[in-house]
């Protein structure tokens, strides 16, 4: 099973819940802004903890309130591409890509550089990159960390239309080259359909 997620978290009096049990390798969380999609990704990554429930990804229990399991973020082997990218501003692209690299487990560096088209950016500083370039570097950094699963938070936001196709192609390439499950957050159903993802819609809780 790719994802077995049943969580509940209350933030500032607002409940966020998700139930998702699927073998699909690519799941798209779809819903309006503010519904808690990023909060779900943060729970799966271990940045925050659910109040109750469980998170099992690719057969590994990351969180279970019943048994008290709550793996630290650093031990979850997650490849998280944040909506705001979070490239380290004091490190060049090369060092950003190498930061979490687990050589034995990750995809080949040259291969990643080639299919993301970021080989020429290695000596650049993050602040000098365009939105699309920064997004591709962020995806490359996540892939090179040898993740067991990928979390992509609105990877096409704040990217111009021409660049979006390139990022979607890159995600397609990842699916072809690596069998790891992907949880993809978007507010655009068409984007999820374009990727042939299993669509899980989140609604405002009362």
């Amino acid at each position, binding site marked *: 099973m790719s994802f077995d997620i049943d969580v509940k978290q209350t933030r500032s009096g607002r409940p966020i819940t998700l139930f998702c049990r699927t073998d699909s390798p690519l799941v798209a969380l779809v819903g309006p802004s503010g519904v808690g999609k990023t909060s779900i990704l943060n729970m799966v990554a271990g940045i925050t903890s659910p109040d109750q429930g469980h998170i099992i990804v690719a057969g590994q229990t990351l969180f279970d309130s019943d048994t008290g399991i709550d793996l630290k973020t*650093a031990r979850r082997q997650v490849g998280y591409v944040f909506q705001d990218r979070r490239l380290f501003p004091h490190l060049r692209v090369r060092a950003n890509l190498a930061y979490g690299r687990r050589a034995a487990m990750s995809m080949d560096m040259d291969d990643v550089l080639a299919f993301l088209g970021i080989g020429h950016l290695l000596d650049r500083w993050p602040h000098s990159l365009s939105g699309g370039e920064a997004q591709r570097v962020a995806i490359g950094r996540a892939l090179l960390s040898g993740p067991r699963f990928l979390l992509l938070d609105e990877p096409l936001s704040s990217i111009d239309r021409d660049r979006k196709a390139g990022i979607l192609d890159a995600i397609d390439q990842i699916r072809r080259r690596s069998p790891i499950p992907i949880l993809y957050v978007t507010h655009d159903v068409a984007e999820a359909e374009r990727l042939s993802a299993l669509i899980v819609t989140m609604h405002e809780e009362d």
Partner: protein
Amino acid sequence: MIVGLSPEEWIVLTLSLKVSLVAVTVSLPICFCIAWMLARWHFPGKLLVDALVHLPLVLPPVVTGWLLLLLFGMNGLIGRWLSDVFGVTLLFRWTGAALAAAIMAVPLMVRAIRLSIEAIDRRLESAAATLGASRLRIFLTISLPLALPGVLAAVVLGFARSLGEFGATITFVSDVPGETRTLPIAIYAAMQMPDGEPIVTRFAILSILLSLGALIVSEILVRRIARGGRHVI
């Protein structure tokens, strides 16, 4: 030897530099720990710790010197212990002057470092955690480098404050030529002499040049670091 300085004046200059450098070097790690604690931790009595750290900033320096005298003097709680256990005395010694300078510099240094720690984007630290980094690695490779401009600013501020320290130093370790007579104390001593005006002028110019030099060096270092980019992308 710097042109125009007598051997005695040269001793004053090197002593001042030694006292300031030791004060800053020894207090820097302590200031960083206090700043980190105040910026990141929540604990009962935090307000009191914050107030105590900043106390030397608002207390008359003479009072700070008197308190140091009470604590580190021959009959002081810590002073007697240092003397009995290590055979060390700080009274009338340059090490005492360094202690007084450090105590007076601590509030400024803690403030500068704390501001830079508070300015670190915590989202970058969580990004590093998702990449498998341990807390120590995140501190060494993300938090510390991003706080570096603030640490440098703290070093310069602390150094300048130590160079200019007068009240607490003269109260605690008095004016002993060659041992505790730092630049400000030497200026004060020269002002008491009928023919001390040229000495005062030379020392005053020297003080200005040293402080200015420290500020320029710090600015160059900060800009060099900033050239690497500080914007979160």
